[in-house]
């Protein structure tokens, strides 16, 4: 049985989205057909990608505007019929995919120029298009099978993106870890959708009634949390994330961090939305997971001195913030508090957009730094603002936005979550309801510390290496996508009211019972926020304009004036604070979780030789939990090897022994075989 239902706008939107997915799948083909170093091949690929993204954006907007969702039933391809659908939630998550994806393609063509990277340029472009297409299919999937197919395509396509530079050992290792984690997640999701099909009556996504057994619901929640949590990078399931994001080419890191992680959030939002009556404990678990991810994500980020790894850890922090919103919304659904649902979900959804915007902006900026100086090491940079002013300015916008500071976009979504959490803390509940909000406050302050460090050490001061001193501004095709992302950050920050309807649609699609009635603007005066942002910018601009001529004159009068060195004449760039020394005051408080490893210099005698100091912070979960655990498992399995001699007789003997044991067991009336075997 096939059918296509829904209002015209939704049907058109769904078709556009699917058409975009088709175009994006094929977008890499021109490059594949033409020679490796050919510019026209990659140019055509970017054009096709942009065309696909434009069509998809039109479709996503149509879905957001449509009054009801569209459903497309496909005749039984697999077990039962397949279903595709489009609603406001799909449209909401599709928009950042297409916006960031399109800009990433433009950035990537210059960043990963086929003439400089002939070996893997074409594969990169093909996998990029495929990844975008799989993301769209994922958002349109309305049954477990289609979802899993799209999910696996996404996992494999992004795996190939991560291992673009497979010649380097650490890239292969990162890719391998990513692949393992992806498939652990896939296993959870297979179980999840099997359970969902059992509870909801079929693989098509249908509401799970409140009458479902609590045990099964708990299993459903646990599977969703682990499966989607791995993808989203929730602590402590995050260990694949920092290396994978750091190893990929920067526009791929932007896509993975800004967009692909959000599919974990989308999956959680979608599946949890199916459950009619979630218990309060789910919301609490999400709040705890979110608070831990946010706080420890930023703590780990502070300790990094690899620019891209640092940004990757910040993704964990932001996923935590998004989860805080989702957890609050779930708690609201469990307790019937519409205001928690609306504020939590508004913060969750808007932060999905915001994080996609500023994190891809920051990864593009990191890519430009890497492009200019050839290193991701923060301590080898410095003074880049003088050499690449446009990149520095745009990076600064991203840095202020990710710290959730007014007047940029991060502030709006974090304010919604704060306000929701404050309402929860104010309510009749216990006083510890204020803890998530306090964690969020500490996270915000630590994020400020972290991005002062990044911006200050990388872009300000004097160059710490010759490469940094010789850095050149990024070319215009790399700056333009960054400028668009920065403009979007500013736009959402100063005019949140413009984007509020889209968020409202998303909330309404998720929580039909409560969200549809209320706009989140009812709880948060978005107009007032716009006034505050405008006032802030205006006052700053006015005073700055008044000061500008003074500063210009000062620079003209004394162009070579050095920084005051407190009387020490031998100041050199190496005396400057480094990334590690800047963060030391904070990271030293967290030695118990960071477990830093040092290689101290040995200084002996009155005239010591030249020496070096090295510190590194490995991922605690991976290095202290997973690797020892796997080693233990391998040792345990080695003991079993004794029984594996390879002789056929021995194996036959094992079969006989097993048979005898089973027979004995089944004869025993006290053994619960009946219960295990069913009827």
């Amino acid at each position, binding site marked *: 049985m096939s059918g296509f239902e829904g209002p015209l706008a939704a049907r058109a939107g769904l078709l556009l989205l699917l058409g975009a997915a088709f175009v994006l799948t094929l977008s890499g083909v021109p490059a594949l057909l033409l020679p490796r170093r050919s510019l026209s091949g990659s140019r055509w690929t970017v054009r096709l990608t942009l065309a696909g993204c434009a069509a998809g954006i039109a479709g996503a907007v149509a879905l957001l505007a449509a009054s009801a969702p569209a459903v497309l039933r496909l005749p039984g391809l697999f077990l039962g019929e397949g279903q595709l659908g489009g609603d406001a939630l799909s449209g909401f998550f599709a928009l950042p995919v297409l916006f960031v994806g399109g800009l990433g393609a433009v950035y990537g063509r210059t960043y990963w120029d086929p003439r400089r990277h002939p070996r893997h340029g074409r594969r990169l472009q093909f996998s990029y298009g495929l990844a975008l297409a799989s993301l769209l299919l994922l958002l349109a999937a309305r049954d477990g099978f289609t979802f899993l197919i799209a999910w696996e395509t996404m996992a494999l396509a992004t795996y190939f993106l991560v291992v673009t530079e497979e010649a380097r050992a650490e890239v292969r290792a990162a890719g391998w870890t990513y692949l393992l984690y992806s498939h652990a997640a896939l296993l959870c999701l297979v179980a999840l959708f099997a359970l969902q099909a059992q509870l909801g009556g079929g693989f098509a996504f249908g509401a799970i009634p409140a009458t479902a057994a609590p045990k099964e619901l708990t299993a459903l929640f646990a599977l969703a949390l682990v499966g989607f949590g791995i993808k989203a990078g929730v602590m402590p399931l995050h260990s694949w994330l920092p290396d994978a994001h750091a190893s990929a080419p920067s526009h791929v890191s932007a896509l993975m961090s800004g967009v692909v992680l959000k599919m974990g959030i989308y999956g959680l939002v979608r599946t949890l939305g199916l459950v009619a009556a979630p218990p309060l404990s789910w919301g609490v678990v999400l709040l705890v997971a979110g608070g831990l991810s946010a706080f420890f994500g930023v703590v780990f980020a502070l300790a990094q001195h690899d620019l891209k790894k640092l940004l990757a850890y910040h993704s964990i922090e932001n996923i935590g913030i998004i989860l805080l919103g989702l957890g609050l919304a779930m708690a609201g659904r469990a307790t019937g508090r519409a205001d928690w649902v609306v504020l939590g979900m508004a913060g969750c959804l808007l932060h999905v957009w915001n994080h996609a915007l500023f994190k891809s902006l920051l990864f593009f900026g990191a890519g430009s730094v890497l492009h200019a100086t050839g290193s991701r090491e923060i301590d080898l940079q410095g003074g880049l603002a003088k050499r690449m002013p446009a990149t520095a300015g745009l990076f600064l916008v991203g840095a202020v936005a990710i710290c959730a500071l007014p007047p940029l976009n991060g502030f709006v979504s974090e304010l919604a979550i704060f306000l929701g959490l404050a309402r929860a803390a*104010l309510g009749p509940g216990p006083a510890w309801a204020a803890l998530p909000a306090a964690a969020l406050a500490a996270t915000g302050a630590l994020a400020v510390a972290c991005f002062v460090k990044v911006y200050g050490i990388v872009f300000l001061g004097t160059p710490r290496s010759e490469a940094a001193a010789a850095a050149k501004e990024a070319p215009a095709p790399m700056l333009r996508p960054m400028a668009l992302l920065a403009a979007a950050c500013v736009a959402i920050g100063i005019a949140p009211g413009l984007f509020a309807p889209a968020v409202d649609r998303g909330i309404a699609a998720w929580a039909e019972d409560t969200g549809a009635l209320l706009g989140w603007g009812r709880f948060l005066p978005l107009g007032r926020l716009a006034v505050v942002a405008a006032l802030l910018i205006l006052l700053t601009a006015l005073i700055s304009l008044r000061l500008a001529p003074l*500063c210009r004159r000062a*620079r003209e009068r004394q162009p070579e004036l050095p920084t005051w060195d407190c009387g020490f004449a031998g100041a050199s760039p190496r005396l400057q604070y480094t990334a590690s*020394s800047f963060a*030391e005051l904070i990271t030293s408080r967290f030695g118990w979780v960071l477990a830093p490893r040092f290689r101290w210099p040995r200084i002996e005698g009155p005239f010591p030789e030249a020496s070096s100091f090295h510190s590194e912070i490995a991922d605690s979960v991976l290095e202290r939990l997973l690797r020892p655990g796997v080693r233990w498992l391998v040792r345990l399995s080695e003991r079993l090897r004794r029984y594996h001699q390879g002789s056929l007789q021995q194996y036959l003997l094992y079969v006989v022994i097993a048979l005898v044991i089973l027979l004995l067991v089944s004869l025993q009336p006290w053994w619960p075989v009946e219960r295990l075997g069913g009827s």
Partner: protein
Amino acid sequence: MALSQILVHLGVLLLLPPLLLGVIQRTKSRFAGRRGPSLVQPYRDLAKLARKELALSATTTGVFALAPVLAVVTAVMAGLVVPLGPFDAPISFAGDFVLFAYLLALGRFFTAAAALDTGSPFEGMGAAREVGFAWLTEPALFFAFFALARLSGSLQLEDMLRAPEGELWRDSTVALALVAAGVLIVLLAECARIPVDDPATHLELTMIHEVMVLDHSGPLFGLVEYGAAVKLLVLDVLLMHILVPAATVRGWLGLGFFVLGVLAVAVLIGVVESTMARLRLLRVPALLVAAVLSCGFALLLLGR
């Protein structure tokens, strides 16, 4: 709200801050047995700085000049969110306390970035300390806000700050005292006062706030000093509202009452600065954790 009220609010907010510095200085002088400089000396200092020549290090970029501007703008905007005694806050909405905290954070971001902009190791040190202590003051501030929100049943800073008066003080003395203690520590830390930081110290190695602005000169330094003074006033107002029921008296008499209250808190800061030694730098986090705990316990007391 009447325009005249906003103008008076702005007038108090913009003109009063240097006087606080004068009062603190006078208190400290009296403790030391000196007469001390005139109360209006900070105004004269600011006027002098505004006229002075500006010198900019060749290392610096636009961030260096932008930071003092933002320090003033964010402090003034934070001042627009709080009520000044009888005068309502010009900007007020549910959740405005988040705006208050994040405005101060925005100022901190740029002040610390400007310090790194000079490439001086001393200024980097100051910046690291500033952001390294702020991550503890911010949760303390939020716990205090939540405690006040529980007391007042409102999420608007205006109502939250006006709640502690009369009956409320009697009913929840302990909780309010704990909140006040926590906010006092936050104030001392955020405004770089003893026992956290010594504004009068002469050794760069031991400074926090002062060392971050070593390279600012002339009008830019004036803005830095003025911004710090406005921030002092704003946090002073926060503490004053918790300690003194200033809002009960309306009108011009209320304004006088308010100014007296604010100056009394300034005297309190002067007394703290005169009677305490500066803490060792590594002990400061312990003090700030005490502030977090103090406000957190207040919240627990108000729990049920």
